[in-house]
């Protein structure tokens, strides 16, 4: 095993270890915050599959996140806990199904146009929930009782318990990470990488490019659905705003902030984004100015995102002419 890979693996294991032990020391609030960051990390990684690995810059990714969150509430019984084995697949399936339909439209377009079309479709889905009584309209809907996993009479898992929920999120973070790593190494992953670097060549080589892209789009949508499911279970509250273009923008920002095309980067970006928001908003009422300024600075000065920082610093120190 090459040293770099080994090093990365060790770093990941260390992070996993810290995440696993954190609830033993952290307060309720920080556990919740960390769980939220992990959910956002799953969400950002799912988008990274499109943006970083396939070259499809989707500006409507919040739609799939939101559809899944709504599915959780709509599938769960009103005053009883939903069955995890029903609710989770339902949420992921509905997100993937919507991604499939949207994908049929948007994947016919390319580049800069794709960005706008995904944005417009997400906004359309936003209005479906905002204007119809289906999801409680503008006020949103509440999940009264969190889902649980029960076999026979024994309760195996109750998502209403913060600690059980935390570890479930951690488990899903690992699952999502492994899933994406495996996917990227599969023929589909290679095809997506090929599409990113040269779509025309892939076409002329006879690859069904559209189908591959659709598969990638659906997979990313389904994974965003997983994050949406977890988010709905965490706060028990789903509102049309979670589908808004600001959310799509934020998750895109996480991917860029961390450095796209590296799954770890997406997770780092999610962490940095949430922490920065916490810090800035505790400094001043006009914290969005700082947030905006930070975004501008990152774009102008740090094209590879935060995960390129160590490499850049090393480049600077050694004095080599490395460019990000």
């Amino acid at each position, binding site marked *: 095993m090459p040293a770099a890979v080994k090093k990365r693996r060790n770093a990941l294991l260390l992070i996993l270890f810290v995440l696993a032990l954190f609830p033993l020391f952290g307060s309720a609030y920080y556990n919740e915050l960390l769980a939220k960051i992990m959910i956002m990390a799953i969400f950002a990684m799912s988008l990274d599959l499109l943006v970083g690995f396939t070259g499809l810059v989707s500006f409507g990714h919040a739609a799939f996140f939101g559809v899944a969150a709504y599915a959780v509430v709509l599938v769960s019984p009103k005053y009883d806990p939903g069955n995890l084995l029903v609710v989770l697949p339902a949420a992921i399936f509905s997100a993937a199904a919507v991604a499939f339909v949207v994908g049929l*439209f948007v994947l016919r377009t390319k580049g800069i146009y794709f960005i706008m079309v995904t944005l417009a479709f997400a906004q359309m889905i936003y209005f479906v929930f905002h204007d119809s009584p289906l999801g409680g309209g503008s006020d949103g809907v509440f999940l009264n009782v969190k889902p649980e996993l029960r076999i026979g009479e024994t309760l195996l898992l109750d998502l209403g318990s913060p600690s059980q929920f935390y570890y479930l999120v951690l488990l899903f973070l690992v699952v999502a990470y492994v899933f994406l790593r495996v996917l990227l190494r599969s023929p589909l992953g290679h095809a997506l990488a090929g599409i990113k670097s040269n779509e025309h060549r892939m076409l002329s080589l006879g690859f069904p490019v559209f189908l591959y892209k659709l598969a990638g789009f659906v997979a990313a949508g389904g994974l965003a659905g997983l994050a949406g499911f977890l988010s709905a279970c965490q706060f028990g509250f789903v509102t049309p705003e979670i589908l808004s273009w600001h959310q799509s923008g934020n998750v895109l920002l996480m991917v860029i902030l961390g450095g796209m095309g590296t799954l770890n980067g997406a997770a780092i970006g999610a962490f940095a984004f949430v922490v920065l928001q916490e810090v800035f908003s505790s400094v001043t009422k*006009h914290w969005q100015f700082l947030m905006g300024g930070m975004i501008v600075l990152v774009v102008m000065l740090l094209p590879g995102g935060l995960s390129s920082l160590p490499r850049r610093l090393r480049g600077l120190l050694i004095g080599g002419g490395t460019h990000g």
Partner: protein
Amino acid sequence: MDFSTFLIQLLNALQYGLLLFLVASGLTLVFGIMGIINLAHGSFYMMGAYMAFSLTSLTGNLLIAVVLGVALSALIGFLLEWGLFSRLYKRDHLDQVLLTYGLILMFEETRSLIVGDDVHGVPIPELLSASIQLSETLSYPVYRLFMSAVCIALAIGMYWLIRRTRLGMMIRAGSSNREMVQALGINIDLIYRLVFALGVTLAAFAGMLAAPVSSVYPGMGNQVLIICFVVVVIGGVGSVWGALVAALLIGLADTFGKVIIPDYAGLTVYILMAAVLLWRPEGIFRRI
């Protein structure tokens, strides 16, 4: 709906569509020629409206305010292109999306710091404050008709600029092949700077023109942004004519959607968009 009501609604649709065109034209121009997705376009619209308010209360005259505002926003556009955007042309579209996303936040907070968070009104100029009686209960403000006239004039002006002038020729050439035009000794950097400034000015001007009827309030830029994107998506990237046709279609869909299927009024525009994309994935018109 009787026939006269229908005609009045048609007029409403036309008027709304033309205003939409004015707001979206700058976006599509910058988009088509420079390949920049400018999310901050709505912020420039907001900026224009606030300029109309501040400068009118300062100078007491909307016309002077508009002249000053146009100059000011052209300058802002020029500086932004020079300071930020010109450094990003070699990069991915994504970077521009994010840059402009950051700018939205900064502009909105700057607005809050300078002008505050209150809602303000801008008076309609005396000369244009009359109304025309349309039916026994309804009259139509002259200012709205004036707005439509200005929009039409600008559409013609843009056509003339792009198709009939030397500058327009260079712009068109620059959008299809930047390097080639540069090799011919044309200062393409300056041309891009001018186009961007023009885009910003168009958005700000739309804000100034709309300020007397729409009033001036926080978050007003975000409201127009998405609908502008839909205009560009339907019209086709970078096509000014496409934007005009799309804006008028949206005006029709929105107006009659509100009357005929009020429960789904928020969706009609998007349904129109989906239908157009099924038919033509790249929008109605393709190039400039």
